[in-house]
């Protein structure tokens, strides 16, 4: 069975794959299958490095994010998130270092709901109880900690590795001291990479 964690950019080229490709190119190709594989890997790595050389987390991040504190109440944190149109928000300590991330999923889990429909029903049935719950609970009881962060200087592969680790839609970007500098949105990263469909080129 295929490894689901294997990167799409690193397909395992079998001998048959290469030989089949060679059949599509007219004329005798003076190259062995193994040499082609080595060339392909080196050229692909070089192309990726060149193509994404400009991609840095610090350049793509959204700065000016107002974070929340671990002692903030959940309703207060929700207001902060909504004001910034965020689905997740970094939680920082007194030194400005990222302690965790508070996401919409964290809210649902902490409020005992499987999804937003269930939360809405609870809101209809018991609005006072829900409001009280949100008003009393501090952020640190609901947040996901520790958070996966990405350094400002992280390049393409560093960002990809970070997103693969956390599966979130956004990553807190930190400086060398671990202090929050901004939030890197997955959609902003994908847009910067210009990832499009494969285009077939004639030999």
């Amino acid at each position, binding site marked *: 069975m295929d490894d689901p964690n294997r990167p799409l950019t690193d397909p395992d080229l079998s001998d048959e794959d290469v*030989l089949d490709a*060679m059949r599509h190119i007219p*004329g*005798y190709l003076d190259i*062995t299958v*193994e040499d082609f594989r080595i060339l392909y890997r080196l050229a692909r790595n070089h192309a990726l490095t060149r193509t994404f050389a400009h991609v840095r987390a610090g350049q793509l991040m959204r700065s000016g994010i107002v974070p929340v504190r671990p002692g903030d109440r959940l309703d207060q944190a929700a207001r902060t998130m909504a004001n910034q149109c965020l689905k997740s928000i970094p939680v920082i300590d007194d030194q400005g270092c990222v302690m965790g991330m508070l996401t919409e999923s964290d809210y649902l889990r902490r409020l005992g709901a499987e999804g937003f429909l269930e939360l809405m029903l609870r809101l209809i049935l018991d609005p006072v109880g829900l409001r009280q719950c949100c008003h009393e609970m501090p952020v640190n009881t609901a947040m996901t900690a520790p958070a996966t962060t990405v350094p400002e200087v992280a390049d393409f592969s560093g960002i990809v590795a970070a997103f693969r680790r956390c599966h979130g839609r956004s990553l807190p970007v930190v400086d060398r001291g671990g202090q929050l500098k901004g939030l890197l949105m997955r959609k902003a990263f994908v847009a910067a990479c210009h990832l499009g469909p494969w285009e077939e080129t004639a030999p």
Partner: protein
Amino acid sequence: MSLRKYFRKMRGSTHGSPPRVSHSEILWSWIGSFIGISSVAWVSMGFFQGTDLTLMIGSYGASAVLAYGAVRSPLAQPRNLVGGHIVSALIGVACYKLLPGVPWLAQAGAVSTAIAMMHATRTLHPPGGATALIAVIGSEEIHRMGWLYVLVPATLGPLILLAVALLVNNIPATRRYPEIWF
């Protein structure tokens, strides 16, 4: 490297042989090599018969394989086709002249040094090894040519093969020659 690893390398790395080329490729390889070699033979007979010079040497057969049968190969490109023969001829004649009393050393030295020099000058062309060897083991006619062997046949012959390769290899839509000049 362990002994086991050393012998394991002899098993090869690929399962399945390279694909056979199309019928069209086979035909154009035949046409190109036929015209190429016959052109060299025609020039040789027309201009050098009766002189001390000869234009046709065995290594052109191998050059024809590359120039008309494997046109995409880096070894078949103009720099290699012409440069490989010239460099090898220089080495071959030098070895013959410098080591007249030790033929085995002259022969081995000519081929191995030609390969090294072709590598160093980025003109590797397998038939060049034969051109260097012919300069040492060739007939009296070849030996009498001395350094002229570098010009005729080692430069003129490949130039004729190159001209034919340019004219013939670019006729079919699926072929292009050269991939790179220098």
